């Protein structure tokens, strides 16, 4: 018996079974293994941030040496560009004032006016090809907290869709990226009464940085170059967030036409993202007293 207990393959089997039990339990809220990982995460995160900061500093320093001449040329071009941009800025400021006046006058709806936007930096990315999520440095401490079944859209600096927040901790959150096999969002062709589609991650296309487009209605013809945006169906994502463009259409199966989509957002190169958290404005609360806070927030699952 003692020999069996000290056998290394018995230890391997026992620990593996324990870990498998832990993995299954981690699906449930309040799992002890997840709590342990959360505690370890708080301890490990500062070290990882330190390595990343040092790596970035080293990379910048090296780039400064390597690109010295190019930077000087670029500086000259940029100075000319700044002068041009200053001129344009003056014009746009004028235009912005006029836009505000028109907005008031014609009640133009600002698509994202009911969202608080939180900026965050990507801490860690997918470590391998299987199902990993992204971590960002904004969590409960920054006011991003999720109830069971909720999720928040994440966009890049140009408001292109990046993914959605699926878990928050003290100082970081986990984001399910657009290319992840479990991601799904309701989209539409970016035109008036554009056809509805479903954009989702796919294990094969993910390697090429592409997504799958399905749920294409009969009679709808998508062509390469068609721009797809979120449709707002499902309540999680507001409508009008750019997702990407159609790259190819597969009509080999007439019953289920599918297409591939190249996202606008290059997740592999992103450094900063923005979390969109819905809120109910005081005006709306006064107009619609029955509207609760939770009804304005997105539900989990497909957006």
């Amino acid at each position, binding site marked *: 018996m003692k020999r069996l207990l000290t056998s*290394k393959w018995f*230890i*391997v089997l026992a*620990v*593996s079974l324990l*870990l*498998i039990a*832990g*993995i299954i339990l*981690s*699906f449930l809220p309040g*799992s002890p*293994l*997840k709590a*342990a*990982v959360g505690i*370890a*995460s708080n301890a*490990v*995160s500062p*070290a*990882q941030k*330190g*390595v*990343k900061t040092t*790596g970035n500093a080293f990379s910048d320093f090296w780039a400064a040496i390597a690109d010295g001449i190019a930077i000087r040329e670029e500086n000259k071009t940029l100075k000319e560009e700044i002068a041009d941009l200053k001129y344009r800025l003056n014009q746009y400021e004028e235009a912005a004032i006029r836009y505000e006046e028109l907005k008031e006058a014609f009640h133009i709806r600002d698509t994202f006016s009911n969202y608080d936007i939180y900026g965050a930096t990507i*801490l*860690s*990315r*997918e*470590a*391998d*090809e*299987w*199902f*990993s*999520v992204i*971590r960002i440095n904004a969590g409960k401490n920054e006011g991003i907290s999720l109830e069971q*079944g909720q999720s928040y859209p994440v966009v890049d600096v140009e408001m292109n869709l990046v993914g959605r927040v*699926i*878990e928050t901790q003290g100082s970081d959150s*986990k984001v*399910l990226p657009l290319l*992840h*096999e*479990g*991601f799904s969002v309701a989209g539409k062709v970016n035109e008036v009464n554009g056809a509805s589609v479903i954009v*989702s991650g796919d*294990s*094969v296309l*993910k*390697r*090429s940085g592409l997504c799958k487009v399905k749920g294409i209605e009969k009679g709808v013809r998508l062509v390469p170059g068609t721009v797809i945006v979120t449709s707002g169906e499902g309540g999680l994502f507001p409508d009008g967030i750019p997702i990407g463009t159609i790259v190819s259409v597969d009509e080999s199966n007439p019953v289920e036409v599918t297409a591939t989509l190249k996202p606008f957002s290059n997740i*592999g*190169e992103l450094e900063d993202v923005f979390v969109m958290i819905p809120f109910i404005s005081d005006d709306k609360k006064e107009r619609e007293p029955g509207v609760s806070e939770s009804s304005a927030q997105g539900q*989990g*699952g497909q957006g």
Partner: protein
Amino acid sequence: MMMNQRKLIRKIVVYAVYILLLSSLQVSYPNRLGFGGQTADITFVFVVLTGYFYGFKDGVIVGLIMGLVRDCLAPIAIIGIDGTVHVTAGIGMLVMFLAGAVASSFFTKRMHRNIPFAFVSIAFITLLYKFSGHFLAYSWTFLVPSAGSYDLGVYEIVVRSSLLQTLLNLIAGIPLLVLLRFAGPVGLAEQRNTSDDVIKSNEDTSWLQI
């Protein structure tokens, strides 16, 4: 006794530094470690080399801790039976633990833990990991219809996933092997004098002193 404690402290410090450093690099700069949609898994290769060169206990303990850190920094999210996506915990620990355990027994006695065979060990365990991963991912989508489909072809699985990952891991193994050899948990002089039997006998005592 004092000498043993010093060796043990060196071991713990060196492993701790490598675990934090390699995990952080793996999740912070995956694009710089990647090619053709695959990323060299330096944490996985480190665990395999640790198990191969320093035995079962080092392999599984470093594997478990490396896996825990991996679960913290780059957790895996999968679609559950209810159709919603869940962030899991423990998959990284299980994978790294098994990698360390298998590496510690992969012809280590017959090959006397020689350096060229370390690359065979990396290749074999990477292929084992990749094929098992694809099989489990396929089985999961087969058992849980809401998890979608996992329709990778044979070419995708064998060439673009498994062989490419193996090649990248083998390349990543070169600097890691040099690091373990010259700045590893065991001093260079001691490595030369350490036979497989000594590693095996140390396994029974060294970690119990922590």
